[in-house]
């Protein structure tokens, strides 16, 4: 069954889009991060113009994070103070990101930048996760009851000024750190159409040293508002948010998410992280191949400009 997407201006199979949404939702349910990093490249692979894919995916991320936030808010797993500080950077970053996106689109380099950023980011994160889950797995096998270490290690970044206390996260760190992190995630969010959870969550755990329990809820809090900002700005400046596309992805996600969380409850964390890292690396490899392979045709068209 085909449906015409009014902003993308092409017709596409409904079930392909629902399936993509479900796959993204499955990941969201399994790992607690949005599946945008997977859904956006796949949307581009099936032929949605990158600008529309990114902007509509941002719209989908709102739905994803609001349903996840519901749960974590009720359980009190949101560090509101940390969320607001992250958001401060996130709003500025995502606004700058949409501006950058518009500029890159105008000079005809947005597709390339999207692909390269995905390859760099996904392969870095994928490798890090794979290494981490493998070493954990090996350690567990050798020593099942490893002693609990320090709450978190102290790096140079903990000596920055403007220190703030984050009670829920049991942290006393410089506010500059989460603001900067939020800023970077905001840019990613705007250019790649992802919530950024797959970068934000590890960064909050390993870089900020937040306890895992509050990480997902807090990141969802920040992602919700950043995605809303991106959606609004993309709709205003580029007019590339396709609500029909977004709605189909959301519907698919609604079905996929609970299946994912049920699966997650059955599989141990190490296995999950290992699986996820393999998936991330596969998407990165596919994108890299696309960049390296000689295209069928070197030509493409930019936006049509109807003279006034």
């Amino acid at each position, binding site marked *: 069954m085909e449906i015409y997407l009014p902003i993308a201006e092409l017709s596409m199979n409904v079930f392909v889009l629902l399936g993509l949404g479900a796959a993204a939702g499955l990941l969201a349910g399994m790992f607690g991060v949005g599946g945008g990093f997977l859904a956006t490249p796949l949307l581009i692979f099936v032929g949605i113009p990158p600008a529309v894919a990114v902007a509509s995916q941002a*719209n989908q991320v709102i739905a994803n994070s609001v349903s996840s936030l*519901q*749960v974590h808010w009720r359980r009190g797993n949101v560090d509101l103070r940390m969320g607001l500080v992250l958001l401060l950077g996130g709003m500025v970053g995502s606004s700058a990101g949409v501006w950058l996106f518009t500029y890159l689109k105008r000079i005809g380099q947005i597709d390339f930048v999207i692909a390269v950023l995905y390859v760099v980011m996904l392969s870095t994160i994928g490798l890090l996760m794979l290494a981490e889950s493998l070493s954990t797995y090996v350690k567990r096998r050798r020593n099942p009851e490893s002693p609990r270490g320090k709450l978190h290690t102290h790096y140079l970044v903990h000596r920055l000024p403007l220190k703030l206390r984050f009670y829920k996260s049991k942290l006393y760190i410089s506010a500059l750190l989460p603001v900067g992190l939020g800023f970077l995630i905001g840019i990613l969010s705007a250019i790649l159409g992802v919530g950024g959870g797959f970068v934000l969550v590890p960064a909050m755990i390993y870089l900020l040293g937040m306890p895992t329990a509050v990480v997902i809820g807090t990141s969802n809090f920040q992602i919700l508002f950043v995605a809303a900002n991106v*959606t*609004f700005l993309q709709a205003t400046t580029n007019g590339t948010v396709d609500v029909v596309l977004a*709605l189909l992805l959301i519907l698919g996600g609604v079905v996929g*998410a609970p299946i994912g969380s049920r699966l997650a409850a059955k599989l141990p964390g190490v296995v999950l992280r290992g699986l996820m890292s393999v998936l991330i690396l596969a998407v990165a490899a596919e994108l890299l191949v696309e960049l390296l392979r000689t295209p069928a045709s070197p030509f493409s068209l930019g936006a*049509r400009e109807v003279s006034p």
Partner: protein
Amino acid sequence: MKRLMIALVASIFWVSGAQAQGPRVDPPSTGLPPSVPAESTTPDLIVDLSRARVSITSAFQGESILMFGMFDPPGEVVVVVVGPEARETVLRKQRFLGLWLNTGRQSFDDVPAYYAIAASQPLQRLLARSAGGEILSLEDRMSTVKPVGPRAAAELAQFRGGLVEVKRREGLYPAAIGQVTVQAGRLFRVDLPFPSRLPEGVYEVKAYLLRDGRIVAAVSRPLPVGKVGFSAQLAGWASHDGPLYGLGAIVMALFAGWLGGAVMRRL
């Protein structure tokens, strides 16, 4: 002089054609309407389209429109469909440090969004005797698009070729010359294919009657292509009031996400 004649014939026909538009039943069987005097210029070419417009709805997957009509034999019929003209920018990828990225761009003005030709005989033969100047093959039409800014001729030819290639791939410049089928020596019909990714605007469908390589009659019909219904409303909203549309999109996602989360937890 020739052009003047063509224009005259065309305009006369246009007027009489418009009159014949009234409460029409079945074109071949109606005969002359009584209001038209018998000795007035009997049109050499009568055409109509199976649809007055191409409506892009939520279920749009491209469409084929039928043009049919009648002509006074002998003669051959050529149909040309031209989409609205606009500036197009062609991007060219090159390998840079092993990666393929856009390194060159060239804009062209007055590029038709769509261009298709159909003929009742191989076009080369019809055009060789030159009704040329008026009926242009795709290659001839593309050679008239104006490049923006200076560039070497060889390079321009490459970009022009690239433009045609992409348009072909999107089905907007059908590669093959369409077949105008003639029946009983005077009835003709031709299918005009429109792909799903179709730019909006008013297209022009022109039919020509050729005798001995000369145009003896020409009829033009506008064919509006536009979104209708739900998709038209959404697209219109998105382009006219971006901020409000953005807020609408946010509210939709918030509601859908909240509802979806609530429903699925119950199951």
